[in-house]
């Protein structure tokens, strides 16, 4: 044992999945979080499905519920993804981050493990919402579900990446919470989830063009509604070609993860 038996290079993927797996294990062990994953979308849909449908008239030329449903998914994904990346701040506060940072693994594997961990939890939440679609009267063509899941995962990765970047810059849970609070509302309102972004002031458009949620909501909407609504309505509410949405989300995730890696290196 004095002489090292072998010199094992740790594979990038193994390091990343180890980090990822710990996130999942911790999540499964936290009953409150598991229960809230299921309860939160159900509650939302009950309120939303029964109340809004009658009270909100729309000038969209389409069912308001169908218009809102993609936004609901996006909002849920955003909430869970952000909340899950707080684990990095906890790790720093409770000292576990040192154990990770002293290990012979690339920082990028750490950041990707953390991001995919949070994205997994967010995607699971989105899948539950997807399963609830028939209950509130949104019809989904089974053939579109794989594409929808793909975009859910991409949105989850983008928001988790942003959350990780914030987490890697923050020392305490409190400051992380404040920054996330500040981010959540503008991100949601500038995403087009509640009102279409085709007729908004220029400054809003610029901000919404940088908002990953915009692309997520747009993609969800197109996948769910395409072909079911008249072309002139589609022209009014759809923003980008579907692949553009995908590319933006992937690009955004990449930039965020890289920025988080740089922040990690700076901090230590």
């Amino acid at each position, binding site marked *: 044992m004095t002489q*090292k038996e072998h010199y094992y290079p740790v594979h990038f993927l193994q390091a990343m999945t180890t980090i990822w797996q710990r996130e999942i294990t911790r999540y499964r062990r936290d009953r409150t979080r598991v229960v809230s994953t299921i309860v939160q979308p159900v509650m939302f849909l009950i309120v939303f499905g029964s109340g809004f449908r009658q009270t909100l008239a729309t000038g969209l030329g389409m069912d308001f519920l169908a218009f809102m449903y993609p936004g609901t998914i996006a909002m849920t994904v955003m909430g869970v993804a952000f909340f899950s990346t707080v684990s990095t701040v906890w790790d720093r506060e409770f000292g576990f981050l040192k154990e990770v940072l002293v290990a012979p693994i690339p920082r990028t594997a750490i950041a990707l493990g953390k991001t995919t961990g949070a994205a997994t939890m967010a995607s699971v939440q989105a899948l539950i919402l997807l399963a609830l679609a028939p209950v509130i009267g949104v019809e989904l063509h089974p053939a579109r579900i794989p594409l929808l899941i793909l975009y859910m995962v991409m949105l989850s990765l983008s928001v988790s990446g942003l959350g990780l970047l914030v987490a890697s810059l923050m020392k305490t849970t409190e400051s992380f919470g404040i920054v996330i609070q500040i981010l959540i509302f503008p991100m949601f309102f500038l995403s087009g989830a509640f009102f279409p972004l085709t007729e908004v002031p220029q400054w809003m458009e610029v901000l919404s063009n940088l908002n990953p949620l915009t692309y997520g909501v747009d993609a969800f909407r197109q996948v769910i509604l395409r072909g079911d609504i008249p072309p002139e309505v589609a022209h009014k509410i759809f923003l980008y070609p579907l692949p553009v949405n995908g590319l933006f989300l992937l690009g955004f995730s990449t930039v965020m993860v890289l920025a988080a890696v740089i922040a990690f290196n700076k901090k230590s």
Partner: protein
Amino acid sequence: MDIIEVKELTKRFGDLLAVDHVSFTVEKGEIFGFLGPNGAGKSTTISMLATILTPSGGDAMISGFSIRRQRDAVRHSIGMVFQDPSLDNRLTAEENLRFHARLYGVPKEDYRRRMEEVLRLVDLWARKRDIVETFSGGMKRRLEIARGLIHYPDVLFLDEPTIGLDPQTRALLWDYVLKLKHDRAMTIFMTTHYMDEAEYCDRIAIMDHGKIVALDTPANLKRQLGGDIIRIESSQKDALQKELEHKLDTPIRQEGNALQFEVADGAKFLPRLLQEVQTRVEAVELRKPTLDDVFLSLTGRNIRKEEAPDQGQGPARGRP
């Protein structure tokens, strides 16, 4: 063979020179101790050696790898037990070990055997399925040590491994550490500010204000003080000091209401002295020098005085 070579290692935090051009070597298989008061720069040095803090200057080689240029190789070669807790309290003991083993690339087929080996070493085998949150402070510390060993490092760094532990647990931990040294010839680099623990080390470096002020075996360090320490209490200590200074040619220090000095062979010297001395003497004490005395003579301060007032139990373990 030197397994650690430190050259002019320096760390600045703004204006503060936390580690000041420190150079030393550690031999393979020895227990090397860093001794010094709070804020001396012990943890900062260890953090640089463990590659989690970038030096402001200088370099160090561990197992032949540079801590600046070959970080991953260094990280593979070392095990680290941090001063502050670093376990995942929500995972079980075994899960904490598995996480670590996978990050260090321990082969799957070796993992079970090694996990059992290190958990038995620290007497936690029976608790392997328990969530760490339910562990006592001492059990957590032992688990951290087991974790630091599971990838068979060349060097194990222990930053104040016994802080906040009760005396029995401290003694047990030392049993483990000595067992590691004897059974596996592992190199152990530790910091402490318990003088009695420093006695277990093969060599110790005394650190103060970011500098190493002495480095030798505990015996040699104490020998430097010149044999035995004699302490005499007297109600007329000023008069006594004058008389003694007249008779002896060693420096005599006042310590509270007593006088203290060092002589070569105290057992023979003391009876002679007491026959001759004129001034009234209340009590005499003859003892071997401790590392405390070494520290005092090197820095002019007592290491204990630097600590928190509740030093009886040892300082609490937590984030600074």
